[in-house]
């Protein structure tokens, strides 16, 4: 198939940036979206132009590196996938595809489609852990039984890949789904209880400091999340936060 691509080009963080049109031809429907981008970049290198910078690494939907806003949707027009898992069979011959970086104040553009997500790192550093040193002398792994339901729910929350699609999809650029997922994982496990009060308070405080917006329950984040992280995690975080405030 032949396609027209409208792609955001921005030389560096200080550049104003603009949309630029490109044409690609003979694209196979079996290609992944990023392989289509490879074809375009090979074309650009051949003609002496600057290839388009975009983040990607594992190309199997788990590292969370790829981050394109395609035709107005994070990770493009399919559900439950990242951009690297999007295939060209989702498009038609002659289509025009618009490709932009994540758009959020807390994710400044570095170059073209590459954004800076270190705000997520700082939120995790504020409390996204259990304070246990590596000793080899912790208690036996089976010493505390955990109900299968709680373990499965914790796992569902823990599958977040930190890509930032939730923020990019949210009209308020809120990071509540990302933070809620981490808070929930630990809130659901007995190991996470000891530091529960400080954790939710510190992570939420850092989230606010980074300039992420608030949640107004639109639910776009849940729809666009490649790992299907549920809105329940935001509700659970709010409960944890409220209960932490009461405790002190």
């Amino acid at each position, binding site marked *: 198939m032949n396609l027209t691509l409208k792609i955001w080009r921005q030389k560096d963080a200080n550049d104003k940036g603009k949309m630029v049109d490109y044409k690609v031809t003979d694209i196979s429907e079996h290609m992944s979206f990023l392989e289509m981008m490879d074809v375009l970049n090979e074309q650009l290198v051949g003609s002496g132009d600057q290839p388009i910078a975009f983040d990607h690494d594992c190309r199997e939907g788990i590292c969370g590196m790829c981050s394109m806003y395609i035709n107005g949707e994070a990770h493009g027009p399919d559900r439950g996938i990242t951009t690297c898992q999007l295939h060209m069979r989702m498009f038609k011959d002659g289509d025009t595809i618009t490709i932009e970086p994540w758009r959020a104040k807390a994710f400044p553009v570095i170059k073209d489609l*590459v954004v800076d*997500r270190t705000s997520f790192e700082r939120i995790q550093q504020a409390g996204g852990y259990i304070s246990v040193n*590596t000793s080899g002398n912790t208690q036996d792994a089976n010493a505390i039984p955990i109900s299968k339901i709680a*373990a499965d729910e914790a796992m569902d929350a823990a599958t977040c890949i930190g890509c930032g699609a939730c923020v990019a999809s949210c009209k308020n650029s809120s990071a509540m789904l990302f933070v809620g997922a981490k808070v929930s994982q630990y809130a659901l496990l007995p190991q996470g209880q000891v530091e529960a009060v400080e954790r939710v308070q510190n992570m939420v405080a850092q989230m606010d400091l980074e300039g992420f917006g608030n949640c107004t329950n639109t639910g776009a984040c849940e729809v666009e999340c490649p790992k299907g992280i549920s809105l329940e995690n935001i509700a659970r975080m709010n409960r944890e936060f409220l209960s932490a405030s009461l405790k002190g």
Partner: protein
Amino acid sequence: MSVLDSKIPAGPIKDKWTSYKDKINLVNPANKRNIDIIVVGTGLAGGSAAATLAELGYNVKAFAYQDSPRRAHSIAAQGGINAAKNYQGDGDSTYRLFYDTVKGGDYRSREANVYRLAEVSANIIDQCVAQGVPFARDYGGLLDNRSFGGVLVSRTFYAKGQTGQQLLLGAYSAMNRQIARGKIEMHNRHEMLDVVKIDGKARGIIARNLITGEIERHSAHAVVVATGGYGNVYFLSTNAMGSNVTAAWKIHKKGAFFANPCYTQIHPTCIPRSGDYQSKLTLMSESLRNDGRIWVPKNMEDVMAIREGRKKPTDLSEDERDYYLERRYPAFGNLVPRDVASRAAKERCDAGYGVNATGEAVYLDFASAIERYGKEQAKIQGINNPSAAKVYELGQAIVEAKYGNLFQMYEKIVDENPYKTPMMIYPATHYTMGGVWVDYNLMTTVPGLYCIGEANFSDHGANRLGASALMQGLADGYFVLPYTIGDYLSDDIRTGKIPTDSPEFDQAEKEVKEKIDFFINNNGTKSVDHFHKRLGKVMWDKVGMARNEKGLKEAMAEIKAIREEFWKEVKVPGTADSLNPELEKAGRVADFLELGELFAKDALTRNESCGGHFREESVELDGEQKGEAKRNDQDYAYVSAWEYKGEPADAVLHKEELEFNDIELKQRSYK
């Protein structure tokens, strides 16, 4: 005597690690505050090492080329992690895990290292649960296990099909705690481009800030390289796009010996390639072989009918299918080790029985498992005489709970529903058992320079068993290196901060900058990927699943020719002082072009078949094992450790003889 000293402690194998730990030198807490350690790579090995070293009190500087430690490719490991917990009461023990790993590695690993790995495996599970890793549990609330290839027990712990992700996020959380305390200085989007040696010791690195292009100097009292494997030498592999050999190769060029480069794992269950544009191959976890049965049609007419779309796989009756692994290996069936399963798939496809248009695919079928689970569920739920549709529905739910994310991944890529039609799979490069040579302390042949995880060679011999990579990465990082590195650093408590304005740093930085300037100014005619793809094709065709003398000699000459052309004709657009992915790739492919030749040379030197290394000249000619790989313990029971001497073809071989005191050397039989 060889220049290689593996430093294996004396004493019975069961006591080696414990008594060694009792006697090695320690660094007191006040002195640890004055010692700096650089950790390059933040996957399971690097991430766990960085966190643990920082907990102990050292000042750690960690480096990752991704924008976060959480994105290292350990995250993509699906199936699980082994540990000798014997929670299932099925006869597992430290010794049995040790035995399985040595046997699975086709008797080409170092006994003492493997025993230690098995010994600390149980601690890993305890540690990860304490960190909040949500492993799968049964209804009683205890940890669940599954079985993996090459073993007869269930010792694999898992978190759905995302075990690597959960373990890495555990190590990442431990790192975050130390980053917040200021004990780890994290450098994201940085790539190590050389190691700096002062008075023969590793004392720092040169790194490039991938956003600004700035070349930075970082000093430390010891350097740890944990940068993973070199499978991308094949261009197509299950590795991440950025996975590379650069850090390992740079330290090789500065004196670290490179061991067994030809030991590469071609994983049997990957999604077959579909076209020339393909950028990577996707693995389907080995755990699927617990419930999936592998087959091709028995009759060539059916193969043709399927390829031409006249028949569907589900049209074939049981009699018309060749479950070739169950036929050839009745004892282990579909759960033979990876190298055996891969070669068996190649054998069938080479004979013309491949089931897709390229002729390079076999089926992985879940129909029997769905039926078996469905009937079991019907019984549990008290449904008498359930209809076939009901059985299918109940069974599918179980399979979905176990492997749902893998099935979804398959469907997104291939556009077929694997619940309804069998998956198509074919082997692909996945893991490299070879790597930088290290002694028992995980130190390379350069003092103060360590190598851990997939990047070293130590534990998996010539073939790695499933769910053992995660175990080794975390064992090295959490439980081995933090002890052994202290023994070395105890001599450095009076050294003080290492300055970065020495002539050694000047020289290393100058060389790095010259190479970058060369790429930017070369103005050649061909892209980096052009050369990488050509290298990959030579590697796959001549240094792939089956190797012979003629092909290997040709490969060495061809790789050298591609390398020479690369340095003349490579074209790198853009500038050195900005984010420039093409420049990053150029440096990595330059190193792959050298490694590839050494790889072929190593394969040529080793004229035996062992594990993932299969020489066509070395097969069993008769008896029950006819056609199987033939190992030669008489001549090749050693580790090949290569010393860099300029051109890869001039590398000098050093042998570490392998001694087997606790396991009898036997032919591997899975029949």
